């Protein structure tokens, strides 16, 4: 296609495109996509995603797993909760790290950033272009993998629940995009790819393994030193937990899988493991639920059931989803701040 055809096509696109172009120059996105799609890494990434996601339903189709007549109905939920949940939270951030850790640092150290910034692009354009471009690359790849996964589910003897799978796709896409955005933003804030990779890995590690102790630590601090106890303390702890995209993704997916009017409450409640008194406090004081103690083989379990009051909006699924995707903006804004003040 010649440059002239290109321009005609572009002038035909009106309204939205023009408005967007007022805000940002989108050309870095297009170039980024074109460039990334030709890299060998992209191919590896696509294969990796596709194989990992396809494997569970494929193994059912080919008869490695047999769920039996009773299992067929909830087989998809079972696989999502026992396989996909951990796979996504462990694998996706690692993939994001590979996709994005050098997104900006590589251009910075090689000097192609100089070429890019010699053109009428601001540093903000470049950062936004990188974040959006890499997110699109990861999103398209993941979308392809998930589509194939859906096909295998349909082909298997398991009951395919379209609405449920749709939500799973939405959450998984959002989680992936959030991590890619965070990693690319980190890349904008550091001068070398090595430092960027270290920082990204640290963030990943902390989100995955360290964040809960932070949340609980803040709770203890509030209780021990500031005298903040009861529901306020647990509200804070829950919110801090939910700010972690990793936990947000897990609790959203759990709530989706529970499929009932008490789904949100029980999945939020499942984020805690405190003693019985505290669990009751959390259920009634934070989640507006009805706490009951059930006696079981391994001691007492607190169950948080429905009550006349509904769960507060700020810990409901839509709010949690917003907290999760808000990371894209937060990360990009922080990265812009550091990227904008440095000498290149």
């Amino acid at each position, binding site marked *: 296609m010649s440059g002239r055809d290109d321009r005609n096509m572009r002038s035909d696109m009106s309204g939205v495109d023009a408005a967007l172009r007022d805000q940002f120059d989108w050309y870095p996105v297009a170039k980024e996509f074109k460039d990334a799609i030709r890299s060998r890494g992209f191919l590896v990434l696509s294969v990796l995603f596709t194989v990992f996601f396809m494997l569970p339903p494929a193994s059912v189709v080919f008869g490695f797993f047999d769920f039996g007549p009773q299992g067929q109905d909830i087989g998809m939920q079972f696989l999502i909760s026992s396989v996909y949940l951990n796979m996504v939270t462990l694998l996706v951030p690692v993939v994001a790290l590979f996709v994005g850790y050098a997104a900006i640092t590589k251009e910075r150290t090689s000097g192609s950033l100089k*070429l890019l910034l010699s053109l009428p692009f601001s540093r903000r354009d470049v950062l936004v272009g990188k974040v959006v471009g890499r997110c699109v690359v990861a999103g398209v790849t993941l979308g392809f993998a998930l589509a194939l996964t859906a096909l295998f589910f349909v082909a298997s003897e398991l009951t395919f629940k379209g609405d449920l799978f749709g939500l799973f796709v939405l959450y998984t896409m959002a989680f992936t995009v959030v991590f890619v955005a965070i990693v690319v933003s980190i890349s904008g804030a550091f001068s070398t790819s090595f430092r960027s990779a270290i920082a990204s890995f640290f963030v990943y590690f902390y989100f995955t393994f360290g964040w809960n102790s932070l949340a609980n630590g803040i709770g203890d601090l509030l209780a021990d030193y500031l005298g903040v106890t009861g529901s306020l303390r647990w509200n804070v702890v829950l919110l801090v937990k939910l700010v972690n995209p990793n936990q947000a993704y897990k609790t959203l997916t759990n709530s989706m899988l529970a499929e009932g009017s008490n789904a949100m409450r029980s999945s939020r409640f499942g984020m805690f493991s405190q003693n019985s008194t505290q669990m009751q406090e959390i259920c009634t004081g934070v989640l507006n639920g009805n706490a009951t103690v059930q006696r079981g083989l391994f001691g007492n379990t607190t169950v948080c059931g429905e009550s006349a009051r509904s769960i507060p909006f700020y810990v409901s699924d839509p709010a949690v989803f917003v907290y999760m995707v808000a990371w894209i903006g937060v990360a990009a804004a922080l990265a812009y701040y550091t990227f904008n003040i440095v000498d290149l």
Partner: protein
Amino acid sequence: MAAIELDGVTKRFGDVTALEEVDLTVEEGEVFGFLGPNGAGKSTTINILLDFVRPTAGSASVLGVDTREESKAIRDRTGVLPEGYDVYERLTGREHLQFVVEAKDADDDPMDLLERVGLDAEAAARPAGGYSKGMTQRLVLAMALVDQPDLLILDEPSTGLDPNGARMMRELVREESERGATVFFSSHILGQVEAVCDTVGILQDGRLIAKDSVDELRDRTEGGTTLHVTLADSATDAALEAVTGLDVVSSVSADGDSLAINCESDAKMTILNAIEDAGAEVADFETTEASLEDLFATYTGGDR
């Protein structure tokens, strides 16, 4: 309005002072040569003009716009050949050009521009990762020419170019200047700056030690390039006459059957041909070049 204006610009990187109180004005339409040895601060100055680097003190404006305020507007009207750049190895030469054309919302034909810098259709269709240094430099030069910029900023443009490429580059600078563009051109090679520039600024250790017209510079560096010709016969007068008439020659002196010709650095063949055409036969020739160090010595009073 000045095309480029630096006002007391100082830049420190930690303890190192890269630029010290630099005041500089480049008029519109001028071809300005920015001369200095490696490490003098030329690239730092250019990086400040492009807002890659922010001055520690002082201010800079390009095309009447402050570099810190409206850098994007500046780069919309400026063509840049930066130093220490890298191309996108997976994009072809043509795609590079297309990208710039789109970025600048221009209507240039990528192939026309590639042709101007001497890259053919075969090269244009190849990924730029496989280009030689000279081809890459040509590609980026073509990118700088997109959308007829009001200002061209070329940082050491002849790096990696062979003599043909260097000539092409000088030709382009002349063409762009005739079109009305201002050209800001940095180099550590005296001959290059001399060949195309109207005005020259000399930078040493982060200070602008001189700014002169190129004619004055030539006078002060009497013998910038000197071609010594020994004639095989004694047709000295004919040769002298032929050489004096050439516009690449600034002065000539004769001593018996040998001539000392002050000339532009790439004029050797022109002059030798003129001598042969005048009926004289050249027995031997040799060129000597005034070094940048000699030039600095002239300007700084011979301290070096």
